[in-house]
């Protein structure tokens, strides 16, 4: 890049250059606008204001729990998807990745109809255990995990598929059960993919809006997460909204940086 050759300096055709510049501006300008209007001087106090601080704390708490739940259920699910030779596994894989493309609001409605107080499953949770998930912090975690878990499952399943099966076989000949081999051979070897999947689903959970507000509502301190707080604060307290938006932007950039070797291979592969 430092020393461009004559060949590199050939003019770009305008028919490509103009829309390319417009496209880049379209993606980058809003971020610059956000930074330009950020209340930098008041940022510290804004972030410490009760509404912002509560939303921030709740969001970090719920996104982390949702990621933990995703890992707890998603890693075994990914293993089954990767290792099963059953004919139904392709169908199962398609079904569990539906939340990836489903509009989150639809997910929230579906959760409400299933886990709500009168829902298909929820009525029994309520009747037998006295558990009611909608409009609670636990509901936030459930909604976020519903949307975020497929990211972890897809990432980890890929890692299981490309993991060296030979090592699991070697472990078996040494007396290791499949569970022991998974815990002591395969999982340690796919830690980078586990982390990537966890970061990805954590970021998705942190930004979750539609499913959360539909299933868990909007109670400050209980279910009002950052994205919801940003949306509502734009009406009443734009400064706080921008402060929260900045936090989410910083988190997104940090996630991108953490995963850059994975998702953005350097040097533009051909």
């Amino acid at each position, binding site marked *: 890049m430092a020393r461009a050759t004559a060949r590199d300096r050939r003019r770009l055709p305008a028919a490509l250059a103009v829309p390319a510049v417009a496209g880049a501006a379209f993606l980058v300008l809003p971020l610059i606008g956000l930074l330009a209007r950020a209340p930098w001087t008041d940022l510290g106090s804004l972030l410490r204001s009760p509404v912002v601080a509560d939303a921030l704390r709740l969001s970090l708490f719920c996104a982390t729990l949702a990621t933990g739940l995703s890992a707890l259920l998603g890693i075994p699910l990914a*293993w*089954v998807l990767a*290792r*099963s*030779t*059953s004919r139904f596994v392709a169908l199962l894989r398609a079904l569990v990745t539906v939340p990836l493309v489903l509009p989150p609001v639809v997910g929230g409605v579906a959760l409400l109809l299933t886990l709500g107080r009168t829902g298909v499953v929820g009525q029994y949770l309520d009747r037998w255990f006295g558990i009611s998930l909608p409009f609670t912090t636990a509901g936030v975690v459930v909604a976020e995990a519903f949307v975020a878990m497929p990211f972890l499952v897809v990432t980890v399943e890929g890692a299981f598929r490309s993991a*060296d*099966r*030979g*090592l*699991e*076989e*070697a*472990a*078996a*000949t*040494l*007396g*290791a*059960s*499949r569970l*022991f*081999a998974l815990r*002591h*051979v395969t999982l*340690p*070897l796919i830690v980078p993919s586990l982390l990537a999947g966890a970061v990805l689903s954590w970021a998705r959970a942190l930004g979750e809006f539609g499913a959360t507000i539909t299933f868990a509502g909007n109670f400050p301190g209980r279910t009002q997460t950052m994205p919801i707080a940003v949306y509502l604060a734009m009406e009443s307290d734009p400064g706080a909204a921008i402060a929260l938006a900045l936090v989410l932007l910083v988190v997104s950039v940090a996630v991108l940086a953490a995963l850059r070797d994975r998702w953005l291979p350097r040097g533009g592969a051909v």
Partner: protein
Amino acid sequence: MSAELPSRAQSRGSDVRSRAQGLHAANGTPERRPTGLVIDGQVERGAFRLDLSLDLAPGRVTGLLGPNGAGKTTALRTICGLTPLSSGSIRLDGIPLDDVNAEIFVPPERRPVGVVFQDYRLFPHLDVRGNVAFGARARGVGRESARAAADAWLERLDLSGLATRRPAELSGGQAQRVALARALATEPAALLLDEPLAALDARTRLGIRAELRAHLRTFAGPVVMVTHDAVEALVLADDLVVIEGGRVTQRGSPNEVARRPRTDYVARLMGVNLYRGSLDRSTHTVELLGGGRLVVTGADQLRDVADVLVTLAPTAVTLHAERPDRSSPRNVWAGVVRAMEPLGERVRVEVAGPPDALVDVTPAAVADLALRPGSQVWLSAKATETYAA
């Protein structure tokens, strides 16, 4: 492997490993006489079919020889349980490991069978000690005693200095020894090796081969070693089984198989004369154990001069009716034709020396020299084709 459990019953084999270990307690001295490994079964996968019938005695090394795709590795995988039989049975010391009719299938983790894989398959995230301790840990032995047991094996295989190294930091020969230590540390009743020397370069292979030979000699149970290298088979194996196209085409001692090859593959593969002896560095001459001496090439690279192997291809030996001019071929000796075997377009002639030799000649040469059993002949071989190994 699939996520479903193997469909055949597993319960009966649950204690095979512990029982078989008892047989080899106290430094490999059997408490009761182990009966070895008996395989009589078939594996079918699509169009491929492997048909095995083997009876392998404890304390003997059986070389499984064959071309690529013949089914050698599949044979090993059935013994250790990574591939189930389609029909028939496998018994180790009288205990069924796989018996299709009786619906017995002992999964690999419960079989008392140690495996050294071709690419070793060391766990890259564990150090050498962790690799060797893995078997004990997998069977519920505590961390400390597993490490102590592993250290004893590291000591035995001269690996103590490498205990904290990662597999990526090992040479090929070291990795092979670690793989062997890891397999032996589970105290298996049978040991399987898949081309144990194939991943090594020619230079280190010689030393490692001698070491491996010594370790295999001390193992009490049956050893099965897959190879497609004739010298490896001749040096390491007590018995040879040749597999071609999924079928056993020949079995016998290495010498029998080399002398009377039954298929073209065996003839080409086992077409090697192998001698042992001691080297005189100054003259590049090896004094052979069975009598006679050979001038050799490649002697400069050897470390141990007391026990040297010499290989000589049957096609590199020439037969003469009269004593040949000594000027160019450096090795000349007299012999008597013992037997002759047609071998495709050639004739393999077995000549009594010393040293004895297999010689491949054309049918025209047989006619020219009027060769028949009992014929007096002279043999010659260039030193440049007589390799010290």
